[in-house]
Each structure stands twice: as structure tokens, then as C-alpha cells.
């Protein structure tokens, strides 16, 4: 029970986040649209953050993923907790063929060099 207690709590958190939704499914290099719930006062709205998944970290309910995009010529990266209750859904728009688990090299590249080769597999439409 001792080691299992933490697993149980973690599984519960994951289950809660996935309630009524499919488990989020995306890969490194995918262009994703992350719908984030934003609270303003007592109103709640959904905002989308579009970018490339350059890293996935952690496991269980600690799992996070990093999305990078260029806005107004400035690179912006956001780290999202995968099972955050504030993530409404994640849509995969395009998949890329990448050979690395972490695409940190994209940070040094700009313009045409920062493109990724598109994967030939059909992009899976998945929502969290």
C-alpha cells in the first residue's frame, strides 16, 4: 500500500483530467493547438496556443509538454502540465518527421531552417 498510495493518487489525478475526454495523443514535432481555459474575474474563456511540440517531460500526472512558436519574431515557449484541468483540449494540426526526442535545436534556427519535414503518416485528430 505504501508505494501504491502515491500511484493511486497520481492515477486519480490523471483520470480526473481525462474525464469525458480522450487521453491526449501527440508526438514530438507535431504542430498542435492547445486550448487553454483562462479565468478573467469570474468569467472563463478558452484561448488557443498554436505551436510545435519540442519536448515532453515526466510521467504520470507530473507529465508536461513544451510548445514553441514564433510570435512577432520572438520565440515563445510554453510548458503545459499535460493533465492540467485548465487544458480544454489538444488538437494535432500537422505531424513532422523528427529524429530527436527534444527539439531544442530549433531555438537556434530561424526562418526556413526552422522548418520540420512533414510526416507521411496521416495526422491523428485527437482531443484530450
Amino acid at each position, binding site marked *: 500500500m*505504501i508505494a501504491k498510495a502515491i500511484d493511486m493518487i497520481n492515477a486519480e489525478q490523471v483520470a480526473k483530467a481525462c474525464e469525458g475526454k480522450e487521453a491526449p495523443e501527440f508526438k514530438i514535432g507535431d504542430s498542435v493547438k492547445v486550448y487553454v481555459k483562462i479565468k478573467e474575474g469570474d468569467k472563463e474563456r478558452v484561448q488557443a496556443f498554436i505551436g510545435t511540440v519540442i519536448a515532453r517531460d515526466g510521467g504520470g500526472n507530473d507529465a508536461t509538454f513544451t510548445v514553441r512558436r514564433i510570435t512577432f519574431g520572438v520565440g515563445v515557449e510554453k510548458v503545459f502540465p499535460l*493533465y492540467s484541468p485548465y487544458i480544454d483540449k489538444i488538437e494535432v494540426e500537422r505531424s513532422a518527421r523528427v529524429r530527436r526526442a527534444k527539439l531544442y535545436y530549433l531555438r537556434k534556427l530561424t526562418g526556413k531552417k526552422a522548418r520540420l519535414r512533414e510526416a507521411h503518416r496521416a495526422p491523428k485528430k485527437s482531443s484530450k
Partner: protein
Amino acid sequence: MEGLIGKKIGMTQVFDDQGRRIPVTVIEVGPCPVVQVKTTETDGYNAVQLGFEEQKPHRMTKSMLKHFEKATVKPCRITREFPLAEGEEVKAGENVTVGIFDDVKYVDVSGISKGRGFSGVIRRYRFAGGQQTHGGHSKRRVGSIGACEFPGEVQKGKKMPGHMGSVNRKARNLTVVQVRGEDNLLLVRGSIPGPKNGVVIIKKALKK
């Protein structure tokens, strides 16, 4: 009841109702059988002795076995005494569970901190140490420990290398994140002293 005996299980994170990630320590708390009730008439003060974690009878002394037998409680590895508030009544043999923290917002958790063995001053007292480059000879050393003929001695209490850890420490005013009665688990925000599986004492916060 003021507090309970528990066991540190480990740390993880949970999301609160605002979607924030909260680091939590999971503690297995109780159920603790009441081994002995001390009263003003018999002992001069009001208190209860609680037990925690079963122990095989052959590992106990005969006198302790009888002590548990008297309360019709299975032998416990750990016993601790907690003060009993005036007017509160418990009977020997009853079980006290984590439920006593249901309406509690803050707790103090004390336990024996992790032992670090003989440690140098950098780890033990967060000294800066000497320079690592440019031919530094005093990389992790203490440095000067005092002046010359005056005062002619090292000041008492001078921070020097020595044994670190394995002492009783208390983490105060930890927020209770979750009380899981059926699993006997308590989730508190932040870290608590001691290793995993270490025995800790959980009390209602004294200063909040």
C-alpha cells in the same frame, strides 16, 4: 485529540480547484489504537497513549505485551503520548483515525530528519567556500576560525564540520490539502522532515 502518529510515504503533485499544481507530501496516518488513557486522578495529567504499526509479539518485551493486552490492542511498534483536552473522552482500545484532521486547515509535522553523516561546512552551514580556480587551496575548507592571541581561543559555537541530520525537526503550519479517510492518508503541502517510511508525528498547528 491533538495529533496522530504517521509514516511518510513520499511526494507527488496534485491540481487544486484553480488548476494550480501543488507539491504535496503523502503521509499514512493511523489508524492509531488508544493504548492507555492517563487521567489526573491516576497520573496527575490528562493524556492518551497511541500506538502505530503492528509489531510481532516475539519482538516485544513481556511487560510491553501485557501493557497492550490490558488495552486489548495488538502490540504496536511505536507508541506516543498526546495531551488530551479537558472534557474529551476516549477509551483504551478505540481507534483514532485521520478523520480528526477533517476540519483542520494547518498541521505541524515533526520527525527525525535524514542523516547526512559527517558533513563539511559547505553542506552543513552553506558556507561559500574558497576559490576553485587561480590556485585555490581552500576549496571546501572552513577558512579562518578566529583571530590570533586575542582572544586566543576559538569562539564557542563556531560553525565547523561535524555530524549533520538525524535530529528531530518540525515543519510548522503546513496546509492540509486532502484528508482521505478510507485510505488513512493525509496530503500536506510542501515537504516534511525525514526519509520515506520515516515515522512522523502530525499535530494540529500550534500557531495558526
